[in-house]
């Protein structure tokens, strides 16, 4: 069960968009958690931000990085914000 690849939908913002050169991406992953997924993407796209500086939203809600990924999730990693 845990090794079954899942299809998820990613959107990228700010420096993650620039570094990945993607605005969005459909992706098949075997990562178990959002944190593992971020490390997978970080390696592939050479993201400069470490996991400790990133938050994650699944389906437009903030969720813990160690939460299991669900197939079909819309996932957005949130680099440090700067409103105002």
């Amino acid at each position, binding site marked *: 069960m845990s090794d079954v690849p899942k299809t998820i939908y990613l*959107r990228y*913002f*700010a*420096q993650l*968009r620039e570094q990945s050169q993607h605005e969005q991406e459909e992706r098949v992953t075997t990562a178990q958690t959002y944190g593992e997924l971020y490390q997978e993407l970080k390696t592939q796209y050479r993201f400069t931000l470490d996991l400790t*500086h990133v938050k994650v*939203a699944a389906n*437009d*809600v*903030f969720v813990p990085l160690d939460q299991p990924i669900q197939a079909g999730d819309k996932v*957005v990693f*949130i*680099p*440090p*914000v*700067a*409103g*105002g």
Partner: protein
Amino acid sequence: MVIKQFSLTNTPLEPAQLWQPLANLSAGAFVSFEGWVRNHNHGKIVTALEYEVYPALALKEGEQILAEAIGKFDLLGAIASHRYGQLTLGEIAVWVGVTAPHRQQAFAGAAYIIDEIKHRLPIWKKEYYLDEPAAWVYCRDHH
């Protein structure tokens, strides 16, 4: 009825319009905050600014921040609006307006809202500089 309105816009923010839903004969105090695009930041000369936003989550988070402020400080109303896209120097990046029976609540509520917007709203700021490459800047209070 308590007013609570959070919005995102890529056109100039107009304080003279934005405050109007807050008009309320029970309110004794109105406080507004505006964040203006400055011509410098941490010693660098800023020439322009760009905000990129994650709209679905930002709208939820913005509404949530306003609801928290209304509850904590007994506000009669709270409105906030954040620009995104390209901004020029001197433009308003964010507008916050609140009403309350008394001034202490209104000041505390407005300060709470802008603090939380800066720390929680999924919006990112890219600064363009005179002599250096543009950069995504973070909220220094937080990192």
